[in-house]
Every structure is written in structure tokens, then in C-alpha cells.
């Protein structure tokens, strides 16, 4: 059943705001961060009004309730991606920290000089720089699956790279620029056949597509709450249990230990071993509420709405002379349209669109190597989510014609 978008939008107070008096907001920047439904805002508000206490080890009522809420959120997030158990969800600050956690713990134990890590050319900086740093520190080699002109990964070259027996294949499930939805299951299957572990950057896939970690057989999955209707400041790393158990702790401090003596400590069990210090408790509660909200709507419905919007957006954008949209056709991508407009810099495009209340992003979107590959310094990016309207696409198109007129 198609979503009733106008009704659903009532759940998102911010979507009713005016950017300036008389100029309503058209929020087309959900790939950067999603807006929050009342369910999330209220859950966090209520947490602070009624339950707030530090978690774990507390004996008083509020501490017990807060702990239960924090752990319930973990269970919800686990269920959302069909993780076998809640303990396999480690709360982090965001996708970036989840990837770094793997790079600092698993990789520093399992990778040595000369070992190969395979990445792709479409990675966000958060799935590049941790590996650059590891490479500089450990002499680990990096290779990249190329992105073809149509925005798809070159899987022939991927297979050839696998013949060099990499230890890890780390890649994004969905490009935050091209929108490309990668064949995640196939990439993982091939990696495993070659004996490599896999890390999927799910920052864009988990918010927008149904994701089942057991069906994918992925070893690590990283994602951020704020891109899936939840708050900033919290994200998650999913990992297979034997891997997590064998990994050394990440940061040291309270909560990640079982016992501490003056000269040594015994680390706590998974997942607490990886969660040092007081975590983002209210944010976890908000994350749980976001997941509940998305489950009520249904991820299939979310994905098919975005599929419809992006198909419409591509059709409309491509009819504008001078517009070039990057990435594959609509049926191979999520709700992301990054484009250039002949002779007009993306910053100017975004600024003029902002004048009409249209929020788009301009720049390299933390994927500078990908832009270099396509020989452009920057793009303007419009992105969509479950609350996006066809009318917002129409507004965008009208806005682009205005930009062209101003620069005429």
C-alpha cells in the first residue's frame, strides 16, 4: 500500500516550518541527516523528564529503568537488522566511529604489513581515512574497486582483486552521492569465498532499505541513527559474535571492564567491552523510537516510496538543459540525485535554491575521490526520504530554472 505522505508529514514538526517568513521549507538533504518524527523527539524528552539516570550498576529505581530502556533500544536496533542477538549491537557515536572501531581493534590484530584491504572508489571519507591511517601505521595495502561511468562498481575488477586474497573488503551498501545500490550480498559472498572478512558501511542502506544481516552474512555493519530519523550522537556497529569476542577493547575506561586493579584490568563482555564511559543514553532511547517508527511504516514501503520519487526526480531533472545527474538509472539507486548545472557552481545553485526554501547540499559530500574520478570539484545533491513529496521535486526543478535565469 502506498504511503500517505501528507499524513505522515504531520509526524515531523520541522517540515511545517518556514525558512523565512512566507517561504516554506523543502527539505531535500536527508542523505546528510534525516528529520525527526515526534515519536523520537517525545521519547527523548520523556526520558529526561522522568527516567534520567546513569546506567548499569545503579541500584535505585531510575538507574534500573534507564538501564532497561538503554538495553531495550539495543534489542530494537538488533531486531531491525535481524541480528541474532542484542549483544551484537555496539553503540557508537555514528557510522564513522563504528568503522574506526573495527579499524582500531579487529584490523590491528588481524592485519599486518603487506596485507590487502579492498575498498571502492565510491566510499565516504569515513570508510577511507581510517584505512589510510592503518595503512600508514601498519604498511597495509589498499586497493579500490573502480566505479564505472554509469555509477556501478566494476565487479570484474573486484573479482581480480579477490584473487590477491585480501583480508578485508570494506564497502558502502549505497553511495551517498551516486545513490548506487551495490549488490551487497554478492560482494560479500565473493569476499568470503576468497577468505576475506567484510565490513559494510550501512549509513545509507539501513535508513532506506530493508537490511537483514543474517541473510547478507555480513561480518560487520556500521550505521548512524541520525540518518534514520533518530538523534545525532549515536550509531551502531553490528558484528558476528566470534569476531566481536576475539577483538580487543576499543577505548578504555568505565563500563568496558569487569574488574580493574592498579596495574591491570579484565575487559567486560560483548558489547560492553566496546562501550567505555557513560554512553548516549537518551539518544539510544531516541534511536529505539526511530526504529519503532520505521518498522511501523515498513521498510519495504519506505524503499518503494523513494524508488518512485527518485524515478520522478530523474525524469524531471534530466529534461532541464545543462543538468547532468550522476549515477545509475533510478531502478539501481536510492533517493539521491547529485548533479551539475553547466557553467554554474554548485555553491551558487544551492544558495539560490535556499532562497526559495529548498535545502540541498553542495560540495563533494565527503566523497572527494569519487568527484575527482568524474573530474568535477563538486555537485549539488538533492536527496529524498519517506516524507519527500513529488511537489518538492517540482519545486526543485522550478528553482533550477530560476538559477539558470539569474545566471542567464
Amino acid at each position, binding site marked *: 500500500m502506498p504511503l500517505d505522505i501528507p499524513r505522515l508529514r504531520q509526524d515531523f514538526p520541522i517540515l511545517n516550518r518556514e525558512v523565512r517568513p512566507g517561504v516554506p521549507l523543502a527539505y531535500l538533504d536527508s542523505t546528510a541527516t534525516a528529520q525527526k518524527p515526534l515519536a523520537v523527539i517525545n521519547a527523548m524528552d520523556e526520558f529526561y523528564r522522568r527516567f534520567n539516570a546513569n546506567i548499569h550498576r545503579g541500584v535505585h529505581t531510575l538507574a534500573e529503568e534507564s538501564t532497561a530502556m538503554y538495553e531495550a533500544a539495543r534489542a530494537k536496533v538488533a531486531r531491525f537488522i535481524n541480528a541474532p542477538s542484542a549483544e551484537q549491537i555496539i553503540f557508537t557515536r555514528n557510522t564513522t566511529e563504528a568503522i574506526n572501531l573495527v579499524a582500531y581493534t579487529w584490523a590491528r590484530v588481524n592485519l599486518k604489513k603487506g596485507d590487502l584491504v579492498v575498498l571502492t572508489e565510491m566510499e565516504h571519507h569515513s570508510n577511507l581515512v581510517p584505512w589510510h591511517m592503518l595503512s600508514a601505521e601498519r604498511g597495509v595495502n589498499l586497493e579500490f574497486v573502480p566505479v564505472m561511468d554509469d555509477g556501478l562498481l566494476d565487479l570484474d575488477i573486484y573479482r581480480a582483486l579477490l584473487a590477491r586474497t585480501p583480508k578485508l573488503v570494506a564497502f558502502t551498501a549505497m553511495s551517498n552521492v551516486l545513490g548506487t545500490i551495490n549488490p551487497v550480498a554478492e560482494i560479500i559472498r565473493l569476499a568470503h569465498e576468497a577468505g576475506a572478512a567484510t565490513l559494510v558501511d550501512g549509513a545509507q542502506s539501513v535508513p532506506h532499505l530493508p537490511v537483514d544481516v543474517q541473510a547478507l552474512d555480513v561480518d560487520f555493519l556500521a550505521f548512524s541513527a541520525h540518518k534514520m530519523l533518530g538523534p545525532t550522537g549515536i550509531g551502531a556497529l553490528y558484528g558476528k559474535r566470534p569476531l566481536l569476542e576475539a577483538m580487543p577493547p576499543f577505548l578504555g575506561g568505565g563500563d568496558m571492564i569487569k574488574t580493574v586493579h592498579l596495574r591491570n584490568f579484565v575487559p567486560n563482555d560483548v558489547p560492553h567491552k566496546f562501550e567505555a564511559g557513560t554512553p548516549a543514553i537518551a539518544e539510544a532511547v531516541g534511536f529505539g523510537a526511530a526504529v519503532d517508527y520505521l518498522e511501523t511504516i515498513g521498510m519495504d514501503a519506505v524503499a518503494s516510496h523513494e524508488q518512485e520519487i527518485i524515478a520522478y526526480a530523474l525524469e524531471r531533472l534530466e529534461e532541464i538543459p545543462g543538468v547532468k545527474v550522476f549515477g545509475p538509472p533510478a531502478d539501481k539507486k536510492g533517493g539521491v540525485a547529485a548533479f551539475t548545472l553547466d557553467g554554474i557552481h554548485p555553491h551558487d545553485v544551492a544558495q539560490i535554491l535556499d532562497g526559495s526554501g529548498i535545502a540541498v547540499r553542495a560540495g563533494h559530500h565527503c566523497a572527494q575521490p569519487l568527484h575527482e574520478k568524474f573530474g568535477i570539484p*563538486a555537485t549539488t545533491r538533492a536527496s529524498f526520504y519517506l516524507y519527500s513529496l513529488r511537489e518538492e521535486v517540482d519545486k526543485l526543478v522550478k528553482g533550477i530554472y530560476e538559477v539558470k535565469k539569474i545566471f542567464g
Partner: protein
Amino acid sequence: MEDLYREIIIDHYKNPQYRGRLDPHDIHFEDDNPLCGDHIEITLRLDGDGKVADGRFDGKGCAISQASADLLIESIVSKPVEEVKQLTKQDILDLLGIDLGPVRLKCALLSLKVLKAGVYGLGEASDDLIE
């Protein structure tokens, strides 16, 4: 928005008076803003009295970065170099006649940064030059 893309900016962007390169020149500097690929190169010729005899800019980027470079060169021709050294962020904003958010401010100030690094004879352009 009409404010931001005031005609003066679009006009200087589309019909710059000082685009080009002076050869020979006394002062040359270039730099870019990696965030958005803006690039500005400035060449100046001085006269015997320590004044800017002529200047040109070249580069690519958004309308704000290119228009502010054109306006900036226009404003310094025949000015003493010592005065050019004293230019500030506010002078650029006055030339553009608009207020800018932090991201676009970087676009607007790139030419000033390049100019000051050039007149001070520095090896590299630092943000301190435009504070």
C-alpha cells in the same frame, strides 16, 4: 536571494574587468579552497612609489569567489601596497554588499587571502590573513 545574487555580483562574475594575468609582474600568488574547488591566482605590478600599478586575477569557482576577486582588484589598483596589507574581511563584505554564512564567507575571502599572502611575500596563505 536577489540580495545575495545582487546584480553587481552576477555582473562581475559574468563580465569581469580584471580577469587575466600580468606578465611581467612583481607579485604573484595562488591558492584554492579544496572544499569546493575554487581557485584564485593574482598577479600585480607595482609602480616606483609602492603603489599597485595594475592587477589581474584568474581562476575558477563560484560566482561569489570570482566576483569578489574582480571587485577586490578593482578596489586596489593605484592604492599603496601598505594599504592593501591592511584590508580585512569587512572590506570584502562591503565590496559585495551582502552578509554571508561561514561556508560562503570562505568563497568570498579566498581572493583576499591570496592577495595578502602575495603582498606580504609569504610562502603560504593562512586564514590568519583574513581574520
